[in-house]
């Protein structure tokens, strides 16, 4: 009954085209149920003349426990947000976003993070000042509902992320959204281009005979390996992430690796960002999204290089740059606070070595020995001994 009343109201307000409501899926009913439950809790406190409060999972490394099989696991840390002077604005915004989410579920619609930010511009004083504000509020809601097993996709908020690039001996089996027909995508047949991972990969199936997946940090290195069809020679799939891999890229790699039992090797810059942000996030997840790591991390990944030891082994000393203050802080922080690095002695050794040398090396530094040195010399030598990869 409530839903009907609502629809008429919204139509009157927004003059949206009337469309026949499809019956809600079971998943959507759960989502709406959880949103109602949460709002009911707040409303109930208000009726009892109590201060309303909401408990959000704490999204930080402090609340992350490292599990070798499943990456970072969320702990029991909760942040209680009681309605007060300092929280009243965020409180209002959080509830507004939840209302928006409910409306989208009911209308089978979605909003990107940026769109949600612009919708808030219509909220008067309660509007968000900048997108990071709305993103944070959204992450909080997402974390709150993840406790009930509701994922962000179900809340109808979508990331803006551009996906990673894929090339190699892989067929991705997608579905046409309108007809539901199967669509086979052969990743060898993109010519000089490559396949881009979309934002939703949950329904994908794969066909491949490749032996491993190589995840590459920089676009430049991906382009070189793709241009020379290096993946064909080595029978692998290469995925370029251009920095920190997006959620869907991570989910794609995880799914691919799980389905086809493929090992995942990472090829990054040898600097604290490449190691503690890009690689660590791919493998075990991040503190900020600690509530969703169980879906998104790739625990089977290992680190091919460039390692600090490579700088010595491949004679790269004169192709390095000194670590700057941010690098040093990041490295020390990883050693001190990051449960992942706490758990792996090899990593501690490697980071300490980097700090001691005081330098970082980019993937492209290998070009010092010739442009194709990386394919002809570096990667074959490294791939000969995968056991030596860092965990």
């Amino acid at each position: 009954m409530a839903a009907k009343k609502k629809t008429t109201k919204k139509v009157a307000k927004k003059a949206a085209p009337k469309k026949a409501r499809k019956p809600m899926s079971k998943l959507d009913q759960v989502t709406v149920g959880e949103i109602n439950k949460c709002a009911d809790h707040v409303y109930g406190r208000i009726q009892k003349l109590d201060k309303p409060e909401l408990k959000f999972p704490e999204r930080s490394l402090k609340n992350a426990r490292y599990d070798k099989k499943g990456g970072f696991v969320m702990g029991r840390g909760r942040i209680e947000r009681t309605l007060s002077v300092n929280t009243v604005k965020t409180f209002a915004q959080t509830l507004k976003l939840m209302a928006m989410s409910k409306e989208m579920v009911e209308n089978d619609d979605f909003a990107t993070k940026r769109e949600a930010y612009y919708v808030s511009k219509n909220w008067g004083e309660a509007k968000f000042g900048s997108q990071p504000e709305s993103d944070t509020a959204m992450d909080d809601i997402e974390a709150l509902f993840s406790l009930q097993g509701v994922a962000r996709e179900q809340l109808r908020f979508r990331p803006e992320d551009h996906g990673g690039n894929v090339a190699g001996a892989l067929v991705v089996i997608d579905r046409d959204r309108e007809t539901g027909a199967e669509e086979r995508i052969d990743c060898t047949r993109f010519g000089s281009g490559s396949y881009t991972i979309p934002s939703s990969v949950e329904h994908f199936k794969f066909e491949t005979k490749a032996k491993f997946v190589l995840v590459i940090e920089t676009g430049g290195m991906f382009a070189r390996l793709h241009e020379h069809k290096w993946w064909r020679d080595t029978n692998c799939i290469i995925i370029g992430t251009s920095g920190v891999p997006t959620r869907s890229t991570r989910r794609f790699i995880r799914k691919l690796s799980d389905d086809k039992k493929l090992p995942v090797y990472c090829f990054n810059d040898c600097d604290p960002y490449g190691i503690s942000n890009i690689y660590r996030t791919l493998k075990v997840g991040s503190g900020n999204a600690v509530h969703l790591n169980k879906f998104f991390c790739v625990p089977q990944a290992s680190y091919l290089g460039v390692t600090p030891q490579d700088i010595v082994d491949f004679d790269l000393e004169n192709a390095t740059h000194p670590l700057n203050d941010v690098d040093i802080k990041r490295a020390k922080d990883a050693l001190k606070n990051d449960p992942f690095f706490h758990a792996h002695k090899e990593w501690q050794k490697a980071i300490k070595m980097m700090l001691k040398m005081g330098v970082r090396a980019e993937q492209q530094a290998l070009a010092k020995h010739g442009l194709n040195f990386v394919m002809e010399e570096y990667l074959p030598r490294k791939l000969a001994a995968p056991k030596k990869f860092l965990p």
Partner: protein
Amino acid sequence: MTSNESGQGQLFAGAAEADMATKKAGKAGSSQKSPAKKAGSKKRTETAESMAKRQREISVSEFFTKNRHLLGFDSPRKALLTAVKEAVDNSLDACEEARIAPDLEVKIERIGSNEKQFRMIVEDNGPGIVKTQVPHVFGRLLYGSKFHRLRQSRGQQGIGISAAGMYGQLTTGQPVKVRSKAGRRAVPLEFTIRIDTAKNRPEFSDKPIEWDKKHGTEVAIPMEGEYRRGQRSIQEFLKLMAVANPHVNLKFTEPDGTVTEYQRNTNELPHEVEEIKPHPHGVELGILLKMIQESENRTTSAFLQQDFSRVGPTVAKEICEKAGVKPTTNPRRLDAKTVGRLKDAIDDTKIKAPPLSCIAPIGEDLIIKGLKKEVEADVYMAASRKPVVYRGRPFAVEVGIAYGRPGDTLEMTDSGKIVASSNKQKNDELLMGNADEPVRLIRFANRVPLVFQQSACAISKAVINTNWRNYGLQQPRGALPIGPMVIFVHIASVWVPFTSESKEAIAGYDEIMDELKRALMDCGRKLGKHVRKGKKLANEFKKRNYITMYIPHVVEALKDILELDDKEVDKATTNLTDVLERSRKL
């Protein structure tokens, strides 16, 4: 009636110069006053004899005719104010000495259609002046009752009102008119007085008149002037006068006929002050010599005991011993050198502070009453220091503060709501500035407002040197603090040390500066409590506004999710507002 030593110094400098010139006539060329160059083309060497022809006494009146700025008659606008001030001072002094609650009427009117000529009339209900004295009081400079005594009064020297008359005579050519009735049965008389500036003597006539008044005096001086309102105007001066003298009733009529009445809100007259003899520590050598000449006492010991306050036989003996003077010596026989030793001995001897009964401070209660009467503010406070001594002269410092423009501040109701105070009014306040303007400083000496030369005054310096940030106000470096505030500072003394004869600024003796500072701090501490409380309230008000701004959004979101009806929405809004206001108790 005017000012201090330095003033006196200058005052007599003129005469003294003339005297000296006479004495030194032999030394040609020593006189600066010589108008010798007038001779012009004819080159002629002056001789002592030729110069002597031009050398003669200068009368005080003549001196002031030329130097009228020294008395506050430098511009037409200021002249009018100075005249009012001198006349009002005299009237109030007379009333208070006779223990009469003063009823004054001040009137400024144009003479004919002349833009620049005014008649200033001040009428009081004082005891009146006896017939023989009237011409002297109003027609002779340096004639009065107040110069020769040490006692707190507004007037000090006996120059002011006659100088005003002289200024009027000089600029309009018209005489001063005075009416006086000295007591119930006396015949009211009207005097017409001109001043012979060469002789410093009045020329006058008098005639009996009909005057329906029990007793009192009225003085009317025609003079060149300029009438304006606003800052440093007669209007402001009288308002300030009313602040410092809440026992006075005053009716003021402006040239355009506008009447302003300042009502008394206390019947308490300033307590009667006693006249004291000079305290030995305040005495300079020249004055000591003069006192010895005028003394009737025939022994040094008796002279010390009877012509000074606070000197008993023991102290007198001690001074004599230190100076090497026999107590029984006739003081007139002492040579200048010995008198010098006597002075050193006095300075070297511990003597009890002078009696303080000669001072009549206004008192904290009456300061607050006065401020309340004329300045609308949220809160009033005052600090009155006990009298102390500078250079042997007792003085007392008092400070009052009126803070906050009504309506600009917040109040907390009993139910815990914060509201802007309800007595908001249109601002036509002459004295109180805005919250972002420097505070207004109002200065008083012996209950007389000081309206000119603020920056040269010790009071201003003391206010600027006080750190008002301690009390929650903003204060730019080396300037008055900022805020909706009036600072009232009063110095009461038997002899207020002005920096000039026009009595506009007070000299910064160390003891006076120290007392000013202490009094300002005393009052500042009281202010600090209030300002901090106000800031806390303002801060809280801001926070609560913030909360109430977002409450509708919280409820609206709940309404969207839970499909609440209007009644439920209203209820939730009130509930939430209540909950949050309850949680923010101060």
